[in-house]
């Protein structure tokens, strides 16, 4: 029994399937993540060249398992992790800004600078609190 899919990137054999993956579409880290999800269900071996073509051998652990289902699940996981990675990459800049801001909030040096800039913006003391003004005039 040997068959392939329409795209000819999956080759089904008796107990295993050979998948050919383009690393430009699914990067290696995504493949690791997808494989990690399935190591309880199947035996997975990676081979090939991570820059040109990655080969994934998926072999069922038990006779009763359906190989096509496992392969389908693997592709679904590939897509899941690709989307996740893309979103993470897109939000990386924003995350960094938020983290920096959070870490700077309680930094004494930053607080001092902030205070100084606040004073510099308000030479006539208009932004001063009402209570503080009352104290000054008393």
């Amino acid at each position, binding site marked *: 029994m040997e068959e392939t899919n329409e795209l000819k990137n999956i080759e089904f054999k008796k107990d295993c399937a050979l998948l050919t993956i383009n690393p430009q579409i699914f990067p*290696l880290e995504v493949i*690791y*993540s997808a*494989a*990690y999800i399935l*190591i309880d269900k199947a*035996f*997975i*071996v*990676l*081979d*090939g*060249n*991570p820059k040109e073509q*990655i080969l994934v051998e998926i*072999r069922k*652990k038990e006779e009763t398992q359906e190989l096509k289902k496992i392969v389908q699940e693997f592709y679904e996981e590939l897509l899941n992790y690709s989307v996740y990675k893309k979103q993470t990459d897109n939000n990386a800049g924003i995350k960094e800004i938020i983290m920096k801001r959070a870490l700077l909030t309680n930094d004494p040096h930053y607080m001092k600078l902030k205070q100084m800039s606040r004073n510099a913006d308000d030479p006539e003391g208009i932004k001063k609190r009402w209570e503080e003004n009352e104290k000054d005039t008393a």
Partner: protein
Amino acid sequence: MKKIQLNKHFYSKEAIEMAKREFLELCYVNVTENEKFYRITLIPKEDDGTNDLARLFANFCLGNMK
């Protein structure tokens, strides 16, 4: 005796060493390498009829890569 070879592009030495430690109770593990592959030989301490020891070892290595 079970043998398997793992591509160096995809499996790190650390991952294999970790898997080796986990398998020490089950079998004797010998790792050699050439330019492209790590060659792993597994000799079960007790023959419990496990045919897929080598593939199981590969799975452990893959799990350690994450």
